[in-house]
């Protein structure tokens, strides 16, 4: 009798939770500091999402340890849909293999994947390499002599270098910096030979005539950049793994009631279809994406298994993806 009463109370509250959600303000947590790509995207997403979900939202930044601190914070909150994380790709196995936190895709529900940023190979305009083939041939002939800057442990530029090293046999001297800005600055000052940062970061220097772009990590040339070859066409061995890049996702803690998850998915679907959103993403030189629910989950899982095993095999990861049941690609 008591158990039945208790059960009905739990069920009752669960139904109530889902039915009139949201009844209080939703916290949108960005596990990165203000001003980065993830933060910019979240700030554009928030007002549109607020309208779509029909409640109030507020945005909070909690940076540190490549996003691990904010991710832990979201996980420490109840799974009631009132703490929504707008995160970059790190929860997809990167935290785990880099030994930053134990949290991975099994701990979160991927509501939607909202944008994608493609990396590029950039060199200074005075550099002697005219195309990607020349750069990589030299990196094969003199292994470890060409210096490549990247923006810190397990970031996009480093993973891109591993992709190139794995499929072409080249070897670079990898120099970590404290962010994308410093990498671009060091390339501009000719302190490093090349970088594999996001196209968004290299674009202004390319348009200003200071950088030469040798390729993008895609299979087709990027729209508006037809002169820059797609690496999938230059190196056919890389083709199955491209386009590879940085994506931004909306996530909630695993165990959030399915009705709330559905409401969040519907709201995300409305936002991602809006022209205001796609225009913004394009203006930040990213590609709009609109993967919802299962499609988003599958994308994240595939990406996770490719990238975490790549990091592990390159010797950059501290833990094996097998420890976290991340399947081999």
């Amino acid at each position, binding site marked *: 009798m008591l158990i039945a009463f208790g059960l009905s109370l739990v069920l009752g509250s669960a139904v109530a939770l889902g039915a009139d959600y949201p009844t209080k303000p939703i916290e949108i947590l960005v596990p990165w*500091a*203000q*001003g980065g790509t993830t*933060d*910019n995207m979240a*700030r*554009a997403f*928030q*007002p549109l999402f607020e309208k779509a979900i029909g409640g109030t939202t507020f945005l*909070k*930044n*909690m*940076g*540190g*340890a*490549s996003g*691990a*601190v904010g991710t*832990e*914070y979201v996980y420490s909150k109840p799974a009631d849909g009132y703490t929504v994380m707008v995160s970059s790709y790190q929860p997809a196995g990167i935290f785990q293999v*880099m*030994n*930053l*936190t134990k949290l991975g895709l099994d701990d979160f529900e991927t509501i939607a994947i909202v944008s994608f940023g493609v990396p590029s190979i950039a060199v200074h305009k005075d550099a002697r390499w005219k195309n990607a083939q020349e750069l990589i041939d030299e990196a094969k002939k003199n292994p*470890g*002599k060409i*210096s490549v800057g990247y923006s*810190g*442990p*397990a970031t996009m530029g480093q993973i891109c270098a591993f992709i190139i090293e794995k499929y072409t046999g080249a070897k670079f*001297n*990898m*120099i*970590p*910096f*404290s962010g994308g*800005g*410093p990498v*671009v*600055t*060091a390339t*501009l*000052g000719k*302190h*490093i030979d090349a970088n594999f940062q996001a196209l968004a970061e290299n674009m*202004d*220097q390319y*348009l*200003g*005539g*200071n950088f030469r772009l040798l390729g993008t990590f895609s299979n087709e040339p990027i729209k508006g950049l037809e002169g820059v070859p797609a690496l999938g066409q230059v190196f056919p061995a890389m083709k199955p793994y491209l386009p590879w890049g940085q994506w931004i996702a909306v996530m909630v803690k695993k165990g959030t009631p399915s009705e709330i998850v559905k409401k969040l998915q519907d709201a995300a679907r409305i936002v991602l279809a809006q022209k205001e959103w796609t225009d*913004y993403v394009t*203006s*930040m030189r990213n590609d709009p994406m609109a993967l919802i629910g299962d499609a988003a989950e599958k994308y994240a899982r595939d990406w996770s298994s490719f990238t975490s095993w790549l990091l592990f095999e390159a010797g950059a990861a*501290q833990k094996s993806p097998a420890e976290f049941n991340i399947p081999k690609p």
Partner: protein
Amino acid sequence: MFIEAIQNALTVKSLLLVSAGSLLGITIGALPGLTITMTTALLVSLTYGWPTWDALALIMGAYVGSMSGGAISAVLLNIPGMPSACATTFDGYPMAQRGEAGTAIGMARTASLFGSLIGMVFLAGVAPIVANFALKFGPYEYFYLILMGLTMISSLSGGSFIKGMIAGLLGMFLSIVGMDPIWGTARYTFGNFQLMRGLNFVAVLIGLMGMSELLIQASKKHIDMPMVKEIKKEVIKLSELWRMKWLILQSSLIGIWIGALPGIGQTIATLAAYDAAKRTVKNPKIPFGQGAIEGVVAPEVADNACIGGALIPMLALGIPGDSTTAILLGAFMMHGIRPGPLFMSSEPSLFWFIVIMGTIAAIAAYFLVRLGSKVFPKILLVKANLLLPVIGILCVVGSYATEGNVFDIFVMLFFGVLGFLLRLMRFPVSSIVIGFVLGQMADSELRRALMLAQGKFIQQSLTRPISLILIIAIIAQLLLSNKRLRERMKFATASIIGSKKAENIR
């Protein structure tokens, strides 16, 4: 284009927006923990739909205003409202304790105005030259520059050199706690993921300065009395300012230069300007550290000159000079403006608009702080047993507000107690701050340089012209700061000349 900028700048709307931004900036600057980076990010989303001119007027106002606000809480409560105001506490707070809070804030406000204006002149006049020179600084140059900064520990340590070094090394050690920026290895985190992100600099500063001062005041006997007996009238003499003309120029150049070097930051600029002031001002009326007016002017000038400096690489090359300009870059893109190397030639009217707005914001900040300058010092007449709890709350809220993380409150409390104990034992807290700001940077830059050098670090250091100059400067500085050696040199030169003064020196 210049005309178009003027036309857009001198409208009632622009002037109102820049003043409103300035007022907001001063408030944010004066409140510990609320940073201008965070404010700029909020303003960028707030002004998303606005016309570009209006958005820029508001943001520039806040950016410039915040630098003037930081000094207020630094002088009154020993809590740097902005991290960059920490050097202002060294002499500003002792001045306030003597009842000269009005003069200290007044001087800070005037110094801020000069700093901003000189910074804007450099931005308008020589931005491309400075930006291209700044690009010549790679990991080697940064490392030696930071090493030079670390020599400040010895000159700022005041009484005991050994105690200064101990405090400096403690600061350097504490700065490397967290995720190693090179390989991502956890250092001294004891498995705590909150420590993975490192110790929050703002919380450390509020603890070391504000909280430790609170504990010192609270441990005094007469807690029901105001901390300051009387408030003297604000005295700002033009002759005094004229006397400090070279100091103002020197501090501006330091501020512009360090501001223009991406990634170094305003806090270091202000500390360096303070240090330079201490070396160059031979006979201050009141010794540095005990309430010298020069010790307030130098960091405040540098702080504001940094704005012009940080805007130089952003506008001339499209690379951010600090975290605030990084957000400004994002704001540009939102408004469909291409930052980058072509910005100054493709958007000259926008460039001039920013320069003009920076100038107007500096003037607005001057008058806005002046409006409040009669009121601010009166806070100190409140009885200590009423004021101290308020300071305590400010410390707690401030350390939480920077990143919205409760853990930072405990960091602040820990450093409050640490600072209190160290100050009781007469260790210089400023040395910990310098060690903390520079330690991590020195570590990363050295390792980056070593990775680039591939075994040829020494050759590279000695053959790169700027790094060689920096090495020579460091050695010269160390030799000159050795008192005995300096006296011997004087003696030697004197005996060569054959003057009788040699005996006097001996």
